[in-house]
């Protein structure tokens, strides 16, 4: 009787463990600055790059993903946006640098909603702005000679029509 009881206990325990691992399966994301962030599997669903990888590797164990391109600061910003259901107001509060980085990470992790949101926010920022502003925004150095630039403006005169010179 006592033996039977122990056997049963072991079965029950194993079952409980299985259930547990199914229900609270978490994913650990390791950022470029070495911080490990544990997130629920539902959060990862939108990160299609990771999702595709998870579908390919069928494992019951907890999974660790290194994100060498993502800092912990940016990852936590992304988590904020996701939990805020991508509120435009939250996007407006981001700095230019944060916005660009999040946009890049959204592309890297293939997060469609986030990419759409940040890309359109950036488009809004550079709309109707001078060439110098846009260069500064994207950290671009102008590598054209003045003659080349004049020639390009001539080739694309239609595009520059009605635009004030900087």
């Amino acid at each position, binding site marked *: 009787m006592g033996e039977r009881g122990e056997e049963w206990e072991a079965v029950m325990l194993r079952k409980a463990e299985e*259930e*547990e691992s199914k*229900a*609270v399966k978490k994913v650990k994301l390791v950022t470029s600055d070495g911080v490990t962030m544990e997130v629920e599997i539902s959060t990862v669903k939108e990160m299609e*790059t*990771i999702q595709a*990888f998870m579908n390919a*590797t069928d*494992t019951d*164990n*907890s*999974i*660790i*993903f*290194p*994100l060498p*391109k993502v*800092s912990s600061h940016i990852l936590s910003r992304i988590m904020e946006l996701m939990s805020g259901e991508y509120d435009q107001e939250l996007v407006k509060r981001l*700095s*230019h*640098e944060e916005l*660009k*980085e999040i*946009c*890049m990470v959204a*592309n*890297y992790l293939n997060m469609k909603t986030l*990419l*759409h949101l940040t*890309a*359109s926010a*950036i*488009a*809004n920022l*550079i*709309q*109707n702005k001078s*060439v110098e502003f*846009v*260069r*500064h925004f*994207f*950290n*671009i*150095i*102008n*590598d*054209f000679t003045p003659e080349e*630039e004049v020639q*390009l*403006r001539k*080739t*694309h*005169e*239609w*595009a*520059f*029509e009605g*635009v004030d010179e900087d």
Partner: protein
Amino acid sequence: MAEPSPAKIPRLEMAEPSPAKIPRLEMAEPSPAKIPRLTLDGEDGNIDRLSPLPECVLLHILSFLDLKEAAATTVLAKSWKDLFLQLPDIDLTFFVKDDNYCNHIRRFHLFAMFSNRMLLERNNDALISSLKIDAKHFIGHFRRDFNSMLSNTAEALSTYKVKKLHLNLDAGNSRTESSCIYIPAEIFSSETLTSLSLTFAAGWAIPKSVCLPNVMHVHFNPFRFEDENSIQRLLDGCPKLENFEFTIKVSEYDDGEVRTLRMSSSSLKLLMVAWDVTDAPEMNIDLKSDSLQRLTLSLKGGHTLKVETPNLEFLSLSAEVLELNMIQGFPASIHEAVIDAEYLSQWTDMRDLYSRCQKATKFFDSMHNLRLLTLSETIMKALYVASKEIPPFENLYKLRFIPLYCHDFPRNWMIQVFIKLFAICPNLEILIFDQVFKNYFCEDVPLGTIFPPSFVQHIKQIEICSFKGRAFEYKLVEHFMNNGTSLEIVCLKKVQKENAKKPTYWKRKQRKKVLSFKTCSAECEVLFI
């Protein structure tokens, strides 16, 4: 199912595979655009973190800008020079802002130069998803530039596997020689096109051979109907066509030989045909399609229609119809109809009149499953004259009347039509009058005769769309509120005059009057809009 207790965590870690087996995410590095970076920018002091945005992300950003603005990024740096050329959606629009004609010609030349670069100089793997060329205020002097754009468009169609093509030429008021424009016939042969829209007055015809195996949407406005078989040729060349809209224009130069529009398709789901002429010739329209679900015909001139569409669900007909033959499956699939047809234009003698009215009512035979019906006064005239009984609309729950005054038909005859009609709509719940006229109801016929209690008690909603506050309107509302045991909504809308500075508001007195009517339904709500 809460988080694992801290005590268990070590065990979980033990269970992890050895480091070599840890699944690692191998992701291709996003190809960075070669954008030189400023290294001496102190913003946030964390510039090192920044990597340049990959080209596909930059294109995504540019896709939210106007094409002109996106193109202006060409001068940012060498790496940006040709970036905008890879955009998958191209919207090239030309319009003029002033009356300086010489300047227009120069500007159109610039527009064409720019457009041709977009069409010719992109990477071969940068496919075009949609291409729209819209030339407004077109004048004859633009033709050389425009023809070059069109021939480049035809070439781009196959090179860049264009999916959607929209060409629009608008000459405005000037009667330009747009006939000197030629749309290459190649646009009617494309493996990739899914959508084709031409709003082009002239310069094209459906070629002898059409091969658009993937096209699902086609829109022509206007369509010059010069060749009787052209529409059928198009339908045959588009085996997947589902949505087809066109407006027929018969040009004044045409000798008017085309008398029959024949259409047969096994893929069409939606068809809209309109006539854009004042003096349309009499025509036969012969339509046959098992797949068609929605049909809208806005015709002018007298037409003889034969419509064989056993799966039709929606029909909207505004036309002068000489004869309409509807062939429907049984039970009829059609459940919504808007009938604004003039059956009785230019009748010759009484015999002709009666015969036409019989035909008009016969047409309702195929509509016994209607759930929503809109009728204009013109069709009601035919219902009045015809002696034939209309079969009952057992399923009809929404009926709407639109006023369209017709000659030789005093409105006070309408009572007879109402009585006839309401008697065959036993389950009507929503009744809408776009407008109520005094002579709809005459003094000596009590409202209880037109709207008997057995009819009124089913009505849940009554609506008068342009309520003017006249006595007979109040009388009608009162009758329904007094007798409508199921009445839930009385909706009264004021007419808002166009160009009025202030909206027309409901006067307190008017509201009070309506609200003072006795209601016999506990749930009745009056909406003043």
